[in-house]
């Protein structure tokens, strides 16, 4: 068991890049959302616009996105954190282009974070860039350096967010050795491509985008299951959760916390709130009086 625990009750959060901003979290908290905490969009070292629209494409079975990490200036983030009237804890997701970037961000944001989630694995890029996935998740060495730099800068829990498209066992091991407290599985899949047959051209800027939603679920579930066996770190599961059964699957595979993203597509604030309650109530009914810890990893029958 790690010394640094992420205390989140209920153990449900939004996924990074979903809802993104503190004002949306405050709104959802006021309306009674059933999440134990929130995860910010990935905050970067400098203002970025991200890609031009269209940045999402619904395949009918999952979502492709190529937001490519838009982020307001860090000063604005700090002001927003200062002014935020929020009771639930916030996991701060960060990204950068070097270990120093990550460490600097942690220094500036430390007092606002319950924990830091390191985005090591976004497959999306603005034109001409290399992706975080390419720079970091594909290289256990790089991942080790980033985590070590962050470890040096904070005592808060560190969550290493992995990619399903790389050798995640190696990345996870590197993150673990460098001092990560949690693993997060997973960032988006692929990337994939969308074409509009009517206009006969690709849809997303640069053609491709990360795939999320139901297609990711079995892949991410396999990651959680394998990493639970391999490493002693607790796991936050992301990927295709739509209903309580999906959340239960992740707990059985070994996740301690489950994150929700694409399932909120097209949902108003009231509908978002309703869905979180449906999911958590379903989990409670499944537990039928047992504690959650009894089912975490219970799908590992050998």
């Amino acid at each position, binding site marked *: 068991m790690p010394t640094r625990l992420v205390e989140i009750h209920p153990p449900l959060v939004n996924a990074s890049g979903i809802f993104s901003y503190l004002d*949306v979290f405050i709104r959802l908290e006021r309306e009674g959302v059933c999440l134990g905490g929130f995860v910010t969009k990935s905050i970067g070292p400098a203002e970025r616009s991200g890609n031009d*629209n269209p940045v999402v494409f619904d395949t009918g079975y999952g979502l492709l996105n190529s937001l490519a990490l838009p982020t307001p200036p860090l000063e604005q983030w700090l002001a927003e954190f200062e002014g935020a009237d929020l009771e639930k804890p916030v996991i701060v997701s960060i990204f950068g282009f070097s270990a120093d970037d990550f460490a600097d961000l942690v220094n500036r944001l430390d007092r606002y974070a319950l924990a830091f989630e390191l985005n090591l694995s976004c497959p999306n890029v603005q034109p001409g860039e290399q992706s975080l996935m390419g720079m970091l998740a594909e290289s256990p060495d790089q991942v080790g350096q980033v985590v070590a730099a962050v470890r040096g800068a904070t005592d808060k829990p560190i969550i290493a967010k992995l990619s399903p498209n790389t050798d995640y066992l190696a990345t996870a091991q590197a993150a673990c050795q460098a001092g990560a407290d949690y693993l997060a599985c997973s960032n988006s899949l692929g990337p994939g491509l969308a074409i509009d047959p009517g206009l006969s051209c690709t849809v997303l800027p640069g053609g491709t985008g990360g795939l999320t939603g139901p297609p990711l679920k079995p892949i991410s579930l396999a990651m959680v299951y394998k990493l639970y066996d391999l490493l002693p770190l607790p796991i936050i599961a992301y990927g295709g959760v739509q209903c309580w059964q999906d959340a239960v699957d992740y707990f059985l595979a070994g996740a301690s916390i489950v994150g929700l993203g694409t399932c909120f*597509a097209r949902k108003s604030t009231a509908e978002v709130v309703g869905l979180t309650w449906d999911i958590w109530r379903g989990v409670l009914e499944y537990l039928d009086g047992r504690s959650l810890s009894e089912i975490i990893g219970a799908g590992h029958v050998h």
Partner: protein
Amino acid sequence: MAVPCPRLSGRAMYTDVTVVENRAESETVSSLFFDRRFKARAGQFLMLWLPGVGEKPYSLSYANGITVKKVGPFSNALASVKSGTRLAVRGPLGKGFSQMPGRVLLIGGGCGMAPLRLLAQQVEEPLILLGGKTADDILFLKEFQGRGEVKITTEDGSTGKKGLITELLPERADYAALCGPEPMMAASLKLLSQERTKVFVALERYMKCAMGLCGACTCSGYRVCVDGPVFSAATLIDMRDFGWRRRAKSGRFEPVSGGVSCF
């Protein structure tokens, strides 16, 4: 006809439409008409995708059309598409205006007249207040006059009363619908809500996903693309950013009156 795809049934991302007419409404404003009518409530919008240029939201001004004011690169490109052009659109999206039984006041400024034109078709004998800088800003005048009484103000007095639209208020009504520049709407709202009028306001924010996921379009935590763009006055009370600030493409805050506004 080819068998429709089960994958796409009810959840196709884009609808392909062909532009059948590009009608100049004024020097800077054009309406595009499509070969397809949308079942929509006034206030709902389409995301219009121009490959290589971008994808942006436009309110339905007609069941089969939108109205665009040339203010920047995208709107200029859009306003210049020729009839026969194929476009891919998403929508109608968002929450439009509710049913408004009783006496209805429609208050419009700038491109806000676009959703208001469609709304005028969906309510009974509205009283319509239109405001602009100059005569050229008053759109759809004939069509509004065909639906109810119309009162106009312009800042330069080139048509209607000289002054601001707020000077025509308060008019008594059961419902009021506001579409226009946010400072105008904020000012009108203050005057109106003291009366016993249910007020609805149509907001605009920078949109990316337009499906409630990314948070780009937030106004004080409400995601305009799914919770709006139409909000009731009761909700607006809770929205500090209304009339104050909005997020730009990066998420940076800017004042609502700043930038090249389309109003």
